[in-house]
């Protein structure tokens, strides 16, 4: 299997899907699913092969290169699996919507562009694929029109700033070294001066920081996640945003190299220390802002920002444990956050687009699979043991504590407790509590929605109980980036400073669960009762009102609301407003009357003549 074939299948399939849609929607749907699955199969076949190949020469005499190594493969398999699940999920979600052909085209195009990014072996093709991804993402975010247009605009403006920064970095690299081949650069760059390395890291850091929504470059994300069509939000939150992490890995540990990156700066102010602190801020503030949200997708979006901070924290530290934690968390996050967005999407699909946390409730009885998805998703997000999030967070915390960074560890740990509060509110307000009367006859979600939810739920438990499966690959990435190899077993990680063994946690939870369940069964049988057969201190139960969801953490809101605002966003919006006003003023000059323009010219000539008469400069 070759990489050209992969790119051809990915891009060709996307356009072919669009044209097949003009013939019949059934044909289009099955082709889109087949195409996405074919990509998974091709990438799976590429496992363990290292290759590098130029596929096009003559782009300003620079070859465009595709290459495969363990880092690319790891991201590619996650992208393709998530893409396939999300396409399957779209089948029923997008049914009976308008412009579906276009939706599938863009969806597959984003997928193809992301694969292009991770497989590209030089910065030119990296940049081209990066731009394809950014633009098609913008179009998909704006798919629903209305407020979505503003969200898409915000995204694309920040994305363009990022791309321009990357372009500057690339030009500088090209003028200095005369090549943009990543493999060649990685041997050349490391010996440059510290100032130049710092420039490179910062300029590329802006690009990838915007994509990964590191504070204070995060403001595009909450609106974009909330307004995009939900199956696409799964892709956007799962892998697309994490192209930023791939970028950080590429610039920090592939191009500049671990040895040079970790020793830039003095004392506290080293590059990786500042990045780690930005990561810590990115964890704490968004996690607490998430607690105030009443929109299910926005709540998850703020957690998307917060979890990105953990990955940054892991990879910024540059130890093999931290790297493993950061990269593993990227995968885990992709799994649970897309699962959560899919659960929300299933709810939206059945309730007619409702995602307001104050008006749902009790849906566990009607949509059990969506509930299981939501439950395992939040467990992974919190990092409950036996779900995948626990292992990666454990690796990150351990790195921080043993490397003498207790304050960073505090930021990471307190983020977890903030997470518990908001995600329990999420789960409670949607699935638990009283079922409103209007949702009495709701159906469970269709099969094409249940399948991705079940697969992802299974993945959460599998990687939580047997973390060795992905950690083996991640360990290979660690080694390829020049870090020490870890002692990874199938059910955990062994090291001289404390081991983690998930299988014995699983065994004891299982044993005690079974014993207590048997005891429970031995007790007198409890008959099941209706939701209105409830304790109300003897009073009659008011139907539809015996529910506690609005202002779930009321005392805390009263305390914290004034402090928990997205001040960065307010600041950016102010700048945008000022710019708009300035441009409006400038526009006054262009009145559209020829007479005015003639007057400008005459005045300008008069000005020149005046200068000539006075000083005779010309």
């Amino acid at each position, binding site marked *: 299997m070759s990489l050209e074939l992969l790119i051809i299948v990915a891009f060709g399939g996307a356009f072919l899907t669009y044209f097949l849609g003009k013939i019949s929607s059934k044909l289009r749907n099955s082709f889109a699913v087949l195409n996405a699955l074919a990509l998974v199969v091709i990438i799976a076949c590429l496992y363990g092969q290292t290759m590098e190949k130029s596929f096009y020469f003559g782009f300003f005499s620079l070859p465009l290169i595709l290459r495969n190594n363990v880092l690319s493969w790891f991201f590619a398999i996650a992208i393709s699996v998530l893409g396939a699940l999300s396409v399957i999920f779209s089948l029923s979600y997008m049914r009976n919507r308008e412009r579906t052909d276009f939706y599938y085209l863009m969806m597959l195009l984003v997928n193809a562009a992301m694969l292009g990014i991770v497989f590209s072996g030089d910065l030119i093709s990296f940049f081209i694929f990066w731009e394809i991804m950014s633009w098609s993402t913008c179009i998909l975010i704006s798919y629903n029109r209305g407020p979505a247009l503003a969200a898409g605009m915000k995204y694309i403006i920040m994305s363009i700033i990022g791309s321009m920064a990357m372009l500057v970095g690339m030009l500088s690299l090209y003028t200095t070294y005369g090549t943009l081949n990543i493999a060649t650069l990685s041997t050349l760059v490391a010996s440059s001066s510290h100032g130049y390395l710092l420039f490179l890291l910062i300029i590329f850091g802006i690009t990838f920081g915007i994509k990964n929504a590191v504070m204070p470059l995060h403001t595009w994300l909450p609106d974009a996640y909330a307004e995009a069509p939900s199956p696409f939000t799964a892709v956007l939150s799962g892998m697309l945003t994490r192209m930023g992490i791939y970028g950080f890995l590429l610039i920090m540990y592939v191009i500049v190299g671990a040895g040079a990156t970790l020793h830039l700066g003095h004392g506290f102010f080293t590059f990786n220390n500042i990045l780690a602190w930005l990561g810590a801020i990115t964890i704490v503030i968004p996690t607490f802002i998430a607690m105030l949200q009443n929109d299910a997708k926005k709540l998850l979006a703020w957690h998307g920002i917060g979890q990105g901070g953990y990955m940054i924290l892991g990879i910024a530290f540059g130890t093999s444990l931290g790297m493993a934690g950061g990269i593993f968390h990227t995968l885990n996050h992709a799994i649970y956050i897309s699962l959560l967005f899919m659960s929300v999407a299933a709810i939206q699909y059945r309730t007619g687009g409702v995602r307001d946390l104050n008006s749902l409730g009790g849906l566990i009885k009607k949509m059990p699979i969506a509930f299981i998805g939501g439950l395992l998703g939040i467990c992974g997000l919190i990092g409950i043991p036996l779900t995948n999030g626990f292992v990666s967070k454990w690796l990150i915390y351990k790195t921080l504590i043993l490397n003498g960074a207790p304050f960073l560890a505090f930021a990471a740990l307190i983020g977890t407790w903030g997470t518990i509060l908001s995600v329990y509110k999420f789960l409670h307000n949607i699935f638990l509590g009283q079922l409103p009367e209007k949702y009495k006859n709701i159906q469970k979600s269709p099969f094409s929605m249940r399948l991705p939810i079940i697969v992802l739920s299974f993945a959460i438990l599998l990687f939580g109980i047997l973390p060795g499966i992905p950690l083996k690959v991640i360990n290979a990435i660690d080694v390829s980036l020049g870090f020490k190899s870890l002692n990874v077993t199938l059910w955990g990680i062994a090291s001289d400073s404390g081991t983690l063994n998930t299988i*014995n946690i699983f065994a004891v939870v299982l044993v*005690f669960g079974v014993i207590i369940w048997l005891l429970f069964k031995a007790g007198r049988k409890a008959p099941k009762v209706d939701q209105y057969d409830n304790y109300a201190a003897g009073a009659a139960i008011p139907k539809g009102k015996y529910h506690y969801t609005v202002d779930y953490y009321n005392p805390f809101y009263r305390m914290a609301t004034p402090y928990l605002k997205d001040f960065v966003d307010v600041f950016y919006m102010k700048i945008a407003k000022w710019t708009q006003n300035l441009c409006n003023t400038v526009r006054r000059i262009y009145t559209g009357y020829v007479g005015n323009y003639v007057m400008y010219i005459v005045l300008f000539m008069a000005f020149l003549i005046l200068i000539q008469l006075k000083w005779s400069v010309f």
Partner: protein
Amino acid sequence: MQIWGIILSPLLALVVGIFFLGLSRKIMARIHWRYGPPITQPVIDIIKLFSQKSISHGTIFDLGLILSLAGSFVVILFLPLGQMCPLSSGGLLAILYLMLLAPLGIALSSGEAANPNSSIGISRKFLLALGYEVPLLFILLAVMTHYNTISLVEIVRIQSTTGWSFGSLPLLLSGIAYFLILPAILGIRPFEIAGAGQEISSGANAEFGGKFLAFSTIQHALHEFIGISLFVNLFLGGWSLFGILEPITNTVWGVILGIIVFLIKMLIVFILGLFINAVFPRFRIEQAIKYLWKWPTLFAFIGLIVVVLVK
């Protein structure tokens, strides 16, 4: 040894936890100048509850409670009980996260009960947890940084040679902070907010009856055991007693005496907690959070800075 530990330590925790419940009622009664129920009253109650009729609100209502009880037992396996510690992988970080299973289970269970009283109880419980986690995390990080390990067994072992953390200067402030938040962790007055009987019908317990209430009571007993035993392990040296038990470490008598010393330390801490419980009224939730984020957090924060500077 490990097998014995896995069987014995949950049983011991169960017995001690329930004994503490009975003892607390007796001591509270004496402070109030009443006679009080017999110490075995919780056992009688639990047996009685098992035979009583109860209702269920659905599958998660049952499974959540089972999960919370199982989670509590699992945490106990990870806590050193004297010299006996059946499981230790993952260290203090794993314990911290395993301690989430119990509240999560209770929250799921009473969430499905669809009773606003339960929901308010859970909301308060989580807010209180957020309140005491801030100082608690500073404290745990101070201890882990000071001993440069994440393993609780290791922390206890080092204390048995160098003396209790509570007595060592760098960790003194952290120890005081832990004692200040201990009532909040145990959920006793003045922090009896989540289970306020008079306001919200015991909160999370509102819909539990019969065997559900019995399970919930056992879970509560285990929770008290975990909270106190973590304090004893971290700051009062676990099983060590001024080096007296040092010569007989790793013998059967050493293990048994170690457990006894450990339990006596727990009892003393618990009775101190009861004295606070007996004389204080209940905080409102904002007052509780404000208290927890003021003095204990300040002590714990300075404690962490001291530890970092001393290193």
